[in-house]
Structures are given as C-alpha cells and as structure tokens.
C-alpha cells in the first residue's frame, strides 16, 4: 500500500480565517491595539482630571526653597535650600542605609546559613531561632521593637551606657569612637590602597604560578606580607599618626565628637539588616543544600580537603543557585528602607512625603520617587546579572 494521497487534503487555498499564520498576526494586532487604546484613554483621563483640579505637572517647583528641616541630613542642608537639595539628602540617606544594610545582611546571612548547616546542634538551633524570629515578624514591627523598645529603654545622656571602645549608648543615639584622618593620614590611606592592590596582584599571580608549575609559591603569606609592608611604610611616612581617635565626650547636655549614629539610623540599620539576613540565610542554605550530595562525596573521594571541597566544588555550584534570589533580597532591602518613614529616619520617601505636603505636587513627586527606586533596582539587578551570567554553567 503506497497511497500518498491524504484523505483530507489542503490542496485548495486555505481560507484566511483558518490559516494559523494569519490568526497569529491578527491576535497580535488586536492585543496591541487594545493595550495602546487603554493607555491613551488613561493618559487623557489623567490630564483632564489634573486640569480640572488645577494641578501643575511640571518639575519647576523643585528649584524653590523646601522650607522644611531634615533631622539627619548626610550633606549640608538647610530648610532654605531647594527641594532638589532636600531630595538629594534623602537619596543619599537611602543609599547609605541600603548599601551598609546589604553588606551587613550578606555577611550575617551567610554566617547564619553556615551555622544552620553546621553539625553543631546548639549552633544550628540558635541559627534556626534567629531565622524564624526575623522571618516571621513584619519588618515594621521589628523596626518599632528596635526603635521604641530598645532605644526607648536606653538611659538618658547623663547616664550613658559605656561599652569598650569606648562606645556610648544613650537616648540620643550611639556614639562610636572613630578614627579621623590627620593631615598626613592621606599618605597612609594611599599606601594602604596601593598595598592592597599589589597584594591582590601578587596573590593572583603567585596562585596562578602555583597552579601552572606546581611549586609552592606561598601566595597567602607573601600577599599578606606585602600588604603589611605597605601599611607600615604608610604609617611611618605619615609620622606615625595617620589617625587620631575621635573619642566622644560629654559636653553640657550632649556628647561631642566621635561618630554619632542617631537612634533612627541605628534602629533602621539593625532591623533592616537582621530582617534581610534571615532571608539571605535561607537563600544561602538552600543553595548549598541544592548541590548534589554526590558532589561532596566525589570531591572527598579524590582527596580534596574540607576547605577545598567547599571552595572548589560546592560554592561555585551553590553560587549559581544563590545569586538570582539574592538579587531579589537586595532589591527588597532597598525598597523596604522606605519604611524608615515610620520612625522618622528621613530617606528619599520620607523627604518626598513631606515635600508633597509642602508643595502639594503629589504627581511629580511620586513620579520622582518611583523613578528613583526603579533606577536603583534596575542598576542593582543589572550589575548582579552580569556577574550571574559570568558564573552560570557553560554547558547546554
């Protein structure tokens, strides 16, 4: 039986309403028209409503004087300065709290994950309690706990808690002893930076040579030694006093000097980084556990040491799993920093909120706020995605 004639043939011209190519194009055009139509309607409606309420949608007001104070400006700011300046101050506060928060959350989270995975029962339980506590309490509640409960119960200025450092803690904030650069300190910093770069260079080169020649090149001690030499050189060049310890001291009703963290900043920083650390701990733990057990066994069986197993086999594979959800956690942390409004730490959202009350320009200001968060988020994920792509499997 060699019958090549199909019983149902499409030899005749296919009518357009049954041609799958035409159906697909039609569906595309239809959906595009609908979406654009809805958008146009929304925009026209918005402008009509804005006109009816006499709202101006320009950004010109940003140059006018803001007229409100910011309690903790990171840059020079007076109420007489412009809205732009106020906005910049808020933005820098946001960047500060998110940047430091991300670093702290990553370190605390990774250590917690390792503790959680450790075979030490006590350590693992402590990590579990830490994670569950912070994961299951709303961030706002945590924020209030730190700000109102913890900082609400620290003593007043005159009876400050004194911790080694010295660090002073009182109702007005945390006062850290802080090394301030002296006039010659710049030389020290420059030499330390150079030393750091040189030692990284030496580390990579010697480690590479160790890999190629197999000869022990002592890359770890050599690079540490180089860093030390440069640091010491800088120390002597700066006359032995690159830094001056700025110790907080009580003057009148308040502490002077040192580095002051306001209760708002400290509360925000602690709750934000601990909260996110709990999530990061779970991300890291999940990533490590997702690496097949056989990998560990194979790496052990060829004789790699514990540390080599972790650094050469487990972590490179775990990172691929960890990075994408880690990006989400970083974005969450940045966006969650807007909750600082609740305790009066004035980052970009809090500043924007006051500006709306003052200037009555809700739409441009919200647009500006959204644009700010959007750019921050896109920038973060852009940078991390480049890294993520670099470490993905070359296979497939």
């Amino acid at each position: 039986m060699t019958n090549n004639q199909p019983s149902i043939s499409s030899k005749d011209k296919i009518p357009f309403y049954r041609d799958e190519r035409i159906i697909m194009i039609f569906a595309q055009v239809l959906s595009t028209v609908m979406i654009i139509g809805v958008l146009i309607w929304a925009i026209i409606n918005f402008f009509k409503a804005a006109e009816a309420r006499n709202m101006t949608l320009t950004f010109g007001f940003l140059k006018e004087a803001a007229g409100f104070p910011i309690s903790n400006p990171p840059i020079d700011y007076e109420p007489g300065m412009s809205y732009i300046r106020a906005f910049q101050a808020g933005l820098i506060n946001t960047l500060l709290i998110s940047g430091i928060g991300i670093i702290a959350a990553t370190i605390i989270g990774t250590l917690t994950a390792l503790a959680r995975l450790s075979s030490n029962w006590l350590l693992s339980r402590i990590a579990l309690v830490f994670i569950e506590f912070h994961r299951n309490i709303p961030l706002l509640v945590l924020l209030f706990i730190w700000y109102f409960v913890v900082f609400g119960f620290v003593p007043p200025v005159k009876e400050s808690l004194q911790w080694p450092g010295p660090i002073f803690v009182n109702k007005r904030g945390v006062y850290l002893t802080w090394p301030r650069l002296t006039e010659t300190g710049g030389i020290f910093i420059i030499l330390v930076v150079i030393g750091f770069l040189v030692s990284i260079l030496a580390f990579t080169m010697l480690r590479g040579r160790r890999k190629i020649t197999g000869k022990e090149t002592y890359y770890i001690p050599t690079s540490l030694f180089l860093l030390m030499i440069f640091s010491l050189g800088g120390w002597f060049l700066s006359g032995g006093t690159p830094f001056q310890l700025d110790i907080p001291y009580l003057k009148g009703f308040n502490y002077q000097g040192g580095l002051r963290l306001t209760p708002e900043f400290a509360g925000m920083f602690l709750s934000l980084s601990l909260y996110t650390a709990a999530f990061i701990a779970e991300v890291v733990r999940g990533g490590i556990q997702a690496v097949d057990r056989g990998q560990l066994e194979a790496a052990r069986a060829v004789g790699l040491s514990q540390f080599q197993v972790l650094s050469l086999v487990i972590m490179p594979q775990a990172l691929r799993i960890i990075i994408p959800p880690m990006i989400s956690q970083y974005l969450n942390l940045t966006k969650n920093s807007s909750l600082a409004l609740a305790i009066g730490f004035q980052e970009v959202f809090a500043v924007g909120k006051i500006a709306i009350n003052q200037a009555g320009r809700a739409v441009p200001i919200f647009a500006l706020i959204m644009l700010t968060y959007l750019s921050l988020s896109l920038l973060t994920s852009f940078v991390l995605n480049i890294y993520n792509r670099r470490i993905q499997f070359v296979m497939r």
Partner: protein
Amino acid sequence: MTEEPIIYCKDVHKWYDDFHALRGIDMEVFLGEVIVIFGPSGSGKSTFIRTINRLEEHQQGQIMVDGIELSHDVRNIERIRMETGMVFQQFNLFPHLSVLQNVTLAPIWVRKWPKEKADKVAMELLELVGIPEQAQKFPGNLSGGQQQRVAIARALAMQPKIMLFDEPTSALDPEMIKEVLDTMTDLAESGMTMIVVTHEMGFARAVADRLYFFDEGLIVESGTPEEIYNNPQEERTKLFLSQIIQH
C-alpha cells in the same frame, strides 16, 4: 601467602541508628587482585565499599589500606583517599568544570602537580578511556557512558593503588554498559587492584579473582568465579544467582 594484604578488614561493623548495616565483615585484598562484590539491594555491599575510603564511618572493627589504619585521624583519612580512587553509580562529575578540569582538579590541588604535568597526564588518561576529543566539553554534554569513563579517568589521575567501583554501570543505558565494562577490563588487565560492586556477572566471571556474596550485612559466601558459579555452597547464593542470571 606471605605478602601483606593491601586492604585488610577485620570484623567491620556499621550501624545506621538501630539498623545494623554491616555485621562483621572480614576481607583481605592483595595487590593486583580484582574483587567483585554482589548481592541483593540493602545487603550492605555499597556501604562496605564506602567505608574503605571513609565516605561512611565504621563503628567497630579494623580497616587498613596500604598499611594505613583508618581511624578518626584526619591525616590518615586523607592519605587513604589519595591511595584509593572511587567511581560512583551516578558519575558525580563536577558540572561546573570541563572534562579536562575534572580530571586535573585533584592532581593540581592535592598532589600539587604543575598544571602542564596534570594536563599531560589527564590527556593520556582520557586517551586510555577512549575520549580525548571530549576534553574541552562539559559533563552535561556527554553521554552517560562517556561521563562514567571520565569519572574513571578522574579517579586514575590521582594515581591510586586501589580503585573502588560502586555499581558503575547501574545508571547506564544498556548499550553504554559495554564501553564502561571494557574500560574496566583493560584496567584490570593492567594490574590495578580493584573492588567492584556490580551485578554484571559476565564481567565478574571474566575478570574477577574472587567473588563475595553479601546479604543482610554479612558475607554469605566467597570464592573464585568458578566455585561460586558452578558449585555455590549456600542456598541463598544459589537462589540469588538463579534470579539474576535467568532472564
């Protein structure tokens, strides 16, 4: 024999909580011998082979590999792992490294060989297992049989005195089993000391010096392939052989 055994196991016991997985295993393996261990699943054969390089800890008894006693001493464990190569049922290649890097990883970082030497030896080994042209590929792009041969090359790269095979062909498609068994046969003929957990009785018959039949954590019977095949002494052995051979 007056010669020292390279692997010496005396009364090895292992418990998983209440479950008594190994109930007193005695075994001596001499240099150049090929040992095949077979038995039903759950009989402890994989557990036993994994105690030899300490992937599983034995709780009682003595294990000595090449004169090194296996104890809680980390240095001894690391030495024994350098003397023993292991091939797993699931290959367990490192997916983030190329085939060549899989083979050179341990020689470079554990034996501290120069990269050039490690690369050269690795290429020779890949030649030996018949897949030098795959050196730059990643494990994910290889067939199961090829992956298992890379795993054999990876284990050999550390120049072990003993090779342990834990059901090396169980996860392979039928047509790939042969290529792996051929590689293992070549290896046995080159004089390598091997302990192989497998149900490939054809391989056992052709290559093994001695067979061990495990059941319920005990050695039920051992002997040369002829003894076990033609004249098994225990009912349990007869039954098991009849089940795995007749199909």
